[in-house]
């Protein structure tokens, strides 16, 4: 039995018909058409599907879409400015060569954003601990950590939101 629900994604309301069993990742990608969020393992291990729900990093592959009504969902598409200029985290990933195949990148950036929103000045160890749920199979972790560290500097200086 499909039900009509409203999801708030990147500040915009979307009305979608879902089954209770429909997962947030599938609704975001297939029904709403925001394909920046990636589906990797489907078991909550790889972090590719990470989105922010009320500012907290959550795994959209093990989250029911119907359970997200009334919450603010942010995907990678919600980070860039309206004029297309990149969010400092995105820019930092580009500048530091932290993107290889790119599949893990949206999840990495969403987890990093949640970390920097909570703690704009994390140590490398904290960055590693907080990003440990995001797996990169190109093994570009070093540059990813550097990119987050560099973004953190901009963050604390300019107070990015």
């Amino acid at each position, binding site marked *: 039995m499909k039900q009509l629900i409203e999801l708030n994604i990147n500040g915009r309301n979307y009305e979608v018909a879902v089954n*209770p*069993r429909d997962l947030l990742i599938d609704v975001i990608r297939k029904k709403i058409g925001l394909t920046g969020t990636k589906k990797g393992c489907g078991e909550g291990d790889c972090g590719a599907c*990470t989105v922010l729900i009320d500012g907290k*990093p959550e795994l959209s592959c093990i989250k*029911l879409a*119907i359970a997200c009504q009334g919450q603010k969902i942010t995907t990678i598409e919600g980070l860039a400015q309206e004029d297309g200029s990149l969010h400092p985290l995105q820019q930092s990933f580009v500048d530091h060569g932290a993107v290889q195949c790119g599949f893990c990148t949206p999840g990495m950036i969403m987890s990093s954003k949640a970390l920097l929103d909570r703690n704009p000045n994390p140590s490398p160890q904290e960055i590693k*601990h907080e990003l*440990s*749920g995001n797996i990169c199979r190109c093994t570009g972790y070093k540059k990813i950590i550097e990119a987050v560290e560099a973004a953190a500097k901009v963050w604390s200086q300019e107070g990015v939101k």
Partner: protein
Amino acid sequence: MVMNHFEYFAPRTPAETLELLGRFGSKAKILAGGTDLMILMKNRAIQPECVIDINQVQDFRTIMCEPGQGAVIGTNVKLAEIQFSEALQAKYPALSYAAGEVGSAQVRHMASLGGNTCNASPAAETPTPLAALGTKVVLSSQSGDRELPLEQFITGVRQLGLNEGEMLTRFILPEPAPRSACRYAYMGRRDAMEIDSVNMAVNLELQPDGETIRNIKLVMGSVYPRPLVSQEVPALLNGQRLIDELIETAAAAAQGEAKPIDDIRATAEYRREIVKVLARRLIQETYAAAKGV
């Protein structure tokens, strides 16, 4: 795999939740964080007829931790909230530390303390320090509440002492005794996103002389079907001042009590070795912390 069809409910109060639970009983599953439940459902290991999502119930999301009054933690308090709560960090550092070592940041923001207990995995992190701290669980149904020590609530692998129509609603943690300390340690193959091969918590209280052990509780995880509370360690150490020889004897006693199995994460032999190492380390650490050294 795709999950089975189910009916979805999102109650807003404990009373509504218990009413639904009374109506559907074992046909229903409670959804808190879903980090275990969704995976079991996706694999079709379980196919509940209805899912009761408790994330709208504010009462299940509260932490009460006032000075001198222990703490009451709602069943759906997220592990990340326990990791970052300054009040809990100060009073129950072993619990905050254990919560912060579960899975990943994403898992910790989704998963709940109640879920980590009710999933009843022998390798679960938080039941070990909770048991060491003397935590009681409150089990609620439409006919009322009852309390049970946590180690009696988890009865085996994925088995709980829950009656039909009952659910865990909150944890009651006693106020730590003066001159006491509780610490947690674990061992796994890697640091992140791993499941512990052994975990352990020790809660130790000193007598007013600040030297003699009044009471020690050592709890082991991942070496028994449920959290294993050592009987021998308190028998050996209560009433004693800690000397190196006693630490060795106590660690060996804990090792003797552990009944680990071989599995993908570690061999039983390795686990037994690690029990001894962690026991030695934690007894020393908690003794020093209780003394205020």
